[in-house]
């Protein structure tokens, strides 16, 4: 069980890293894109805008209070 947890922790750190919120925003944006496409809207713009906004949010959190 301990090894399984360590294995999971390794892959979590490998892919997601320090801030899980970026991954959550990307996942939500992909789901929203798929939903909009299913509704007939070609939402190609949603994911790039969301990813760059997530980056900004993550950077803001990382630097808050460090000045």
């Amino acid at each position, binding site marked *: 069980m301990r090894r399984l947890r360590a294995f999971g922790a390794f892959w979590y750190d490998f892919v997601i890293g*320090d801030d899980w919120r970026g*991954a959550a925003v*990307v996942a939500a944006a*992909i789901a929203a894109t798929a939903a909009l496409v299913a509704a007939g809207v070609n939402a*190609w713009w949603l994911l790039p805008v969301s*990813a760059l906004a997530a980056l900004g949010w993550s*950077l803001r959190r990382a630097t808050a209070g460090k000045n």
Partner: protein
Amino acid sequence: MTELPLVLTVFVACAVEAVEALTIVLAAGLTREWRSTFQGMSVALVVLAAVIAIVGPALTLIPLQPLRLVVGALLAVFGLQWLRKAVLRASGYKELHDETGIYARQVAAAEAAGASRRGWVHDWYAFTLSFKGVLLEGLEVVFIALTFGASQHSIGWAAVGAVAAVVVVAAVGIAVRAPLARVPENGMKFAVGVMLTSFGVFWAAEGAGAAWPGNDAALLVIVPATLLAALGYVTLLRRARQGAAAAPVAVAVAPGGAGQRPVRPEGEGR
């Protein structure tokens, strides 16, 4: 998309990882013992080859759209992580990646560690240091090469980029027998972060069913737009840092000798 951007992206990404692995292998080999270092490196390479042999062919069996959805999502998340660190480094909020410093720390730790023999390994410390370094950096190489290659149905070309990077870095490392501190790693990491995020976003949106205007040519806009946004964040963070450093903080002595308190100028408080 032609194979050139694919090969170049994989080459640069893998070169960065290979430089980091080389630093660890050199620290273990030059400080401890080459035989155990090579044993650790060889076992790690066998594990990586097994991962490639299992995952590589499996990826080619998955239909392209779901593959691009999953791989694109993983690359976008992975790329954002790279880009976040690169922006923090470029703006001064995170220490720059310094191979010389990392090498010095690895050497100090290797010199301080005691010797122990386990089975056919003479120096267990050198073995594990080399094994972990090559395996962890190698996994990133494998991840990038397989995801890029599979999404383009060009695992062969991705492998060319990855192998070329490892061969070039290994050859230079053998020639100079020192960590490759002159490689512009921080700039390369920034570029790789931009490319991973851009391609990840492109493939994930396609996998979710969206159609990009201009199809593959959309990458000619996505990559520069991502780069500009990242550079914009660097500029904003640098300004915030410089502004905070330059903000005058006067020190006033309270009447009656009650002590000192910092006084911020008008409008500076939050």
